[in-house]
């Protein structure tokens, strides 16, 4: 149908252009991994990984008490299904899906539930959350596992159900529920699964150790996830300085006989392990702002998540433990440990030799994005990939904060191509519409801008504050819009009621008048007939 107006032509051309762009993007996404692309900005950081990853993986001994948080994913707390004094086995469900956003939590070992209390969980606000406290009985006896016999024959829906009920969440630190992410992506159509083994943040080496020591489980998890999401191939991305890992993974892929799995080395540049940047490196495409990798037909999962998936589907064992890197200049014997979920951090630190005298800050996560803990009572959660203890020399501040000198180093380092100096000015001045326009929502909080700033402005803190404010304002606006609509609806209703009442009165009056008119007419007719009768008589 020919567009009648010039605007119609323009719109049609634009739609055609969009569709062609979309097709080109799909083609480019299908070529993922064939060659590597650069991404803007980023920093070359010192690794500090050898101090922890040379040591083989150790299992943490069971502590006196395990504090298993019921909030173990980005969302809401699970509903406890055990009571005080109840005997539980390892892998038994102790927390169940209650409402949208909550998930499943399992007992990390066998023992007795001693309480369900509020306890510090590792949330940046310092909030406490409900935890199931378990006193281990030392037997560590598993519940009857329920493995999926012959998983390649099972339907993707069933695989996803198992993944969800095993409480598997993104173990890269985001804690996003895996089953939800995978099924949501499946609906959009995924052709390539990407396993993210490029741990770009300094000090953290838990994924590297996992890939070196248990590559077969990763490959198995990759195959299961590939089937669950319906992808045609898998890419396992690792950093180019992980030589031993490369061999281990390649051998594991060969052993498994899978032919659609590629192990690709990507450049070691922070924050190359961030999902959007990794996709840009592998495909040259940018995930659209506000969109997800699934829009490009890609799905990213952490390698540890893949291992957990393999264990859940093939062995029938839910997620109850994870590898944690305990490291830093404030730890005597840095290493990677396999800790049960709910183990207090103090116990993990003790296993790593305890604190050195100069230990000054306890960080959950890496030095770039981790957040500090006030004390070590917090438990290991599913998101705890690293416990970093820094000493005073690591945290020396040579200069107090100065105003921004507009040097532009932050913009040069930003992987999202934002203008941190502008965002900083707008947020401090409270100019929220300009803040939103300058793209604050696209900030990945990697910290590159913070590190390069000569004025030592705490940019990430300001951006987090700005994001919270934008969200609060959006909520206020939504409330205000709702109130306005309801007010207008009410005014309309009152108006209508008034009109209806007026109409009823008018009709009644008219009816009365009509009755009066007809009565008058009848009276006249009667009078006329009477007169006639009188005249006749």
């Amino acid at each position: 149908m020919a567009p009648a107006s010039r605007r119609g032509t323009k719109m049609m051309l634009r739609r055609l252009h969009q569709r062609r762009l979309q097709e080109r993007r799909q083609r480019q996404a299908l070529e993922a991994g064939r060659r590597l692309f650069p991404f803007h900005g980023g920093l070359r950081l010192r690794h500090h990984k050898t101090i922890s990853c040379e040591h083989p993986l150790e299992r943490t001994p069971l502590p006196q008490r395990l504090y298993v948080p019921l909030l173990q994913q980005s969302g809401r707390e699970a509903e406890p299904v055990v009571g005080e004094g109840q005997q539980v086995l390892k892998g038994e469900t102790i927390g169940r899906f209650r409402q949208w956003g909550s998930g499943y939590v399992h007992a990390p070992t066998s023992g007795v539930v001693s309480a369900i209390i509020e306890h510090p969980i590792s949330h940046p606000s310092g909030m406490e959350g409900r935890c199931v406290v378990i006193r281990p009985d030392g037997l560590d006896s598993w519940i009857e596992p329920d493995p999926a016999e012959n998983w390649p024959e099972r339907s993707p829906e069933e695989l996803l159900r198992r993944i969800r009920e095993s409480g598997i969440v993104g173990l890269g630190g985001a804690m996003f529920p895996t089953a939800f992410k995978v099924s949501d992506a499946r609906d959009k159509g995924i052709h390539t699964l990407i396993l993210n083994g490029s741990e770009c943040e300094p000090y953290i080496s838990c994924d590297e150790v996992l890939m070196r020591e248990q590559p077969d489980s990763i490959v198995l998890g990759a195959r299961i996830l590939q089937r669950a999401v319906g992808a045609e191939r898998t890419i396992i991305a690792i950093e180019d300085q992980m030589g031993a890992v490369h061999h281990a993974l390649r051998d594991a892929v060969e052993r498994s006989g899978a032919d659609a799995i590629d192990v690709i080395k990507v450049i070691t540049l922070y924050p190359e392990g961030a999902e959007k940047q990794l996709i840009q490196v592998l495909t040259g495409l940018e995930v659209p702002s506000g969109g997800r990798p699934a829009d490009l037909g890609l799905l990213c999962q952490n390698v540890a998540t893949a291992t957990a998936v393999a264990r859940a589907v093939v062995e029938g064992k839910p997620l109850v433990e994870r590898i944690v890197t305990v490291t830093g200049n404030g730890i005597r014997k840095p290493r990677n440990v396999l800790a049960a979920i709910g183990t207090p951090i103090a116990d993990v630190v003790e296993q790593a030799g305890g604190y050195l005298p100069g230990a000054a800050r306890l960080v959950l996560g890496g030095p770039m994005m981790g957040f500090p803990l006030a004390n070590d009572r917090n438990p290991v959660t599913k998101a705890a990939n690293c416990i970093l203890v820094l000493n005073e020399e690591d945290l020396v501040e040579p200069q107090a904060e100065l105003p921004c000198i507009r040097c532009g180093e932050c913009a040069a380092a930003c992987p999202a191509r934002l203008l941190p100096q502008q965002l900083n000015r707008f947020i401090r001045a409270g100019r929220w519409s300009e803040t939103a326009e300058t793209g604050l929502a696209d900030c990945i909080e990697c910290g590159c801008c913070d590190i390069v700033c000569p004025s030592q402005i705490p940019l990430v803190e300001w951006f987090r504050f700005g994001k919270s404010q934008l969200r609060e304002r959006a909520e206020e606006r939504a409330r205000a819009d709702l109130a306005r609509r309801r007010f207008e609806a009410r005014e309309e209703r009152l108006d209508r009621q008034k009109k209806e009442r007026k109409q009823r009165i008018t009709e009644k009056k008219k009816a009365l008048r009509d009755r009066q008119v007809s009565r008058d007419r009848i009276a006249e007719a009667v009078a006329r007939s009477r007169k006639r009768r009188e005249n006749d008589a």
Partner: protein
Amino acid sequence: MNRPFDTGMAPHYSPSVTVGGVMRQVLYALVPGIAAHAWFFGPGVLFQILLAAVFAIGLEALALMVRRKPVRLFLGDYSAVVTAVLFALCVPPLAPWWIALVGMVFAILIAKHLYGGLGGNLFNPAMVGYVVVLVSFPQVMTAWLPASGITGQAPGWVDSALTIIAGQPPGGVGWDAISSATLLDAIRNSASTGVSIESLRGTAVFGSAAGRGWEWVALGYALGGAWLLARRVISWQVPAAVIGSALALGALAWLADPGHNPSPIIDLLSGALVLGAFFIATDPVSGCTSPKGRLFFGAGVGILTIVIRRWGGYPDGLAFAVLLMNMAAPLIDRFTRPRIFGHERQ
């Protein structure tokens, strides 16, 4: 174990870059140029630097106290010292002491602190100070010295100090006896007297490739600038754009009329072009922040400098060019914003 820890926010690191560190590197990079300057034109420049620095630090401390800001913190960022040194390099070596005072009052108090202090100035403070004294005291500001080797040695330490303090050359000698025009002055005058540029080559004011003495000073600044580039203190866009556009426009003019326009080499090695390209136009606060914006900014500075040199009223136009581009910088920034990751091309 229940020991409390300090809870500073991410990122957790010990920073290596500081504003004071950056400014100090800029000062180090100026040393070769200052050395050449003192070699050829006497120690007057060192006195100017000292005077300007003392006034600048004093005025900055005063302004900070009046504004109730932490004095030691802001003095420690060396930005006042850099402003003072850049100003001192632009004034004649024997300028009276009150030139530095007036210049610093306008640079530090008015151009910097009235606009909000560090990070808030719209115009380059050194250039504001220089332009104010240039326009207000034209005779004093044009009393340049000849390079040593023409009329014997440059003035010594004592003579320089006395001249600067007294405002007059010592011993009753007049200014005309000791001052001489620079090459750019001669070129400007030649435009009105009709003398060709080529004839200037043989005169005393001409060195090997450009103004005697001044060519070495420019090379000294270029050396320092190259060091700053290698240390990544400044980015390549501004110097490349300033020098590139100045050379391009200068070459066009020279090709069009070689008799009355100097060759681009002379333009490059004369006046404050190299100093401006590496040290003045790269001032981050008053310039553009995006790389593309810096290219436009630098190109504007280079082009305007040559335009003022050829067709304007002043022998050297760098200061005015920088101030004019400072006015345009916010607009340039607005139009050269990078495309944000994940957003469509607008």
